[in-house]
């Protein structure tokens, strides 16, 4: 059901050519090297293995495989923890070295896009403090949140282009004894998932070939500083970002196209917290119902905090209006972890998702009740004080989830 490369290219009057030398924007890598040479910034380089992929205009982007500093997302950790734990679980399956820091704040971008109760200097200083903290550990930042990723890339551009902003941020960082550090790449975790997809496939335990899924590409991943997102000629003819879709295809999932793929999810930053009539209407009418009407998927998959929350939680109220809803929502990392035998509740944490996910697990042949009962046993031990909580020791081992 995926629109084929040929179909997309047929619609084009000119062939798609990606020529980095003809890119319409400055190459950020060169700008950063110049600033480093002038002694204006410390440029953090990737240590160890990395893979290079083409971005929108044909430039190359390095994606580190390990020694990563996990810049967590407040929306994941606060409201969809199975998203974050799936990312780390995947690292652990391959014994990849990572650091889960507590010397990290939220990027505060959600607040900024919601309320504007900050300014360019404040936002750049928050980013730079986090990057300096990562640099101190020697680990390279891997950004979990799509908004943090987009926001940081935009701030990086502002820092590169405005000396007065750099000077002001440096003045603030000086007070903490920190240098102005910018990593050589700003990397989103879904790019790491993309880089790892064939390795996930090699360790896949759950057949997913009977699943049809739609993809919601996250706005702040590929619309903010659009040139830096990963594109692949094999995926939609290089006309849409390749992350998420490429992973699902590697896992054997049938990716179905739908007409409103470019629309946002309706999150709205301020709207999802204090004006949800907009959020609910947009999520249901422009995304979920369109997917239902056009391809009726078993699942929709995305790669950002706000998108998972909005698309999932907005479906309940729409039932009262007899709208066509009922598509479970997961992140790419959760799908990959499930495919490799992660426990549906200890790791993927399905119970934090509200749209009914049971039919999806049943279609995969997973006896969710069995794993839910097992998880209830964990909760009983925690309630009675016999266990302080679930640890990686309880969660690391992959399970043969299907008979």
């Amino acid at each position, binding site marked *: 059901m995926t629109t084929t490369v040929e179909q997309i290219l047929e619609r084009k009057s000119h062939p798609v050519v990606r020529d980095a030398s003809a890119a319409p924007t400055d190459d950020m890598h060169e700008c950063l090297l110049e600033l480093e040479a002038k002694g204006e910034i410390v440029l953090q380089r990737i240590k160890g293995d990395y893979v290079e992929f083409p971005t929108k205009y044909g430039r190359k982007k390095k994606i580190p495989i390990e020694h990563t500093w996990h810049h967590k997302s407040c929306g994941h950790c606060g409201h969809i923890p199975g998203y974050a734990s799936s990312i780390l679980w995947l690292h652990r399956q391959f014994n990849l070295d990572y650091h889960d820091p507590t010397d990290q704040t939220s990027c505060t971008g959600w607040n900024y896009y919601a309320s504007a109760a900050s300014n360019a200097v404040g936002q750049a200083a928050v980013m730079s403090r986090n990057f300096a903290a990562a640099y101190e550990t020697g680990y390279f930042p891997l950004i979990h949140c799509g908004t943090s990723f987009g926001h940081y890339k935009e701030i990086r551009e*502002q820092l590169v282009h405005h000396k007065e902003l750099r000077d002001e941020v440096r003045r603030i960082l000086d007070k903490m004894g920190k240098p102005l550090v910018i990593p050589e790449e700003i990397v989103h975790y879904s790019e790491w998932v993309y880089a790892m997809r064939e390795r996930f496939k090699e360790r896949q335990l759950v057949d997913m070939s009977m699943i049809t899924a739609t993809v919601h590409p996250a706005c702040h991943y590929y619309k903010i500083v659009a040139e830096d997102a990963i594109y692949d000629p094999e995926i939609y003819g290089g006309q849409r970002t390749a992350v998420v879709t490429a992973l699902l295809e590697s896992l054997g999932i049938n990716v179905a196209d739908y007409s409103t793929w470019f629309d946002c999810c309706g999150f709205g930053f301020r709207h999802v917290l204090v004006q949800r009539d907009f959020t609910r209407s947009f999520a249901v009418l422009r995304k979920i119902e369109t997917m239902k009407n056009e391809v009726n998927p078993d699942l929709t998959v995305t790669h950002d905090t706000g998108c998972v929350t909005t698309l999932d939680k907005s479906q309940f109220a729409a039932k009262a209006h007899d709208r066509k809803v009922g598509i479970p929502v997961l992140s790419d990392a959760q799908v990959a972890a499930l495919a490799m035998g992660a426990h549906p509740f200890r790791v993927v944490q399905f119970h934090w998702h509200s749209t009914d996910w049971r039919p999806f697990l049943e279609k995969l042949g997973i006896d969710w009740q069995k794993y839910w009962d097992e998880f209830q046993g964990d909760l009983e031990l925690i309630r009675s004080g016999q266990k302080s909580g679930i640890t990686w020791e309880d969660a690391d081992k992959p399970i043969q989830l299907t008979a």
Partner: protein
Amino acid sequence: MPTTQENWNPGKAANRHPEATYEEKERLFLEVKNDVRYHDFLYGCYECGICVSACPSARFYDFSPRVIAQAMAREDVERIYDILTEDIWNCAQCFSCVRCPRQNNPGGLITILREVSLKNGLQESKDALQGYSRVIYKVMLKGNQVSPDMLQPDFFPDWGPWVQNFSQNMHVWRKAIPMDSIRGLTDVAWRVERKTLLELYTIWFESGNMDIIKELDESLYDLLVEVMQEELEDA
């Protein structure tokens, strides 16, 4: 939002907000124009409407990123004041509008307009952010935008019985997460070190962020300053 007829009017907009003087409106516009990002976000406008076709808020509100880019490009001070007081909070900040063939960033312009509106204490912005202060309090003080304990049934009734079920089980569910940085925490998304928070407070004071909060909500400002200063003095 001005009427369609006004939008097509090639002249400058009429004065729809006589409660503010032209000089005041111009001062606000110049504050927007002097923002370091302004010239990266606006290069003129073809009036092509590509931004509108991509804009989620244009589907649900009487709202248009094209009108905003146009008004800014023409430096139409009256229209910009209309936008400041009537439109900016409808934007979803999704940045779908950056498809603009002129390389404009209407969403970015709106971010600057919002900042200026807040800094100048415009009542419309205070109204739009009513009920939002607790989020600002959380993110500035705890270093996390959201936390599990914010998921309360009175606040998210439209999310259905899941929220009720969640809030009854929140404490035990939080312990059943394998990540050390999250496990057991309900008032923050992850554990943030004290040293890290003190650095964050330094940023808020040094960047001028606190002045914005003072204009927005004086009692929130007092609360934040009291806690942050005490923590910084104890350090």
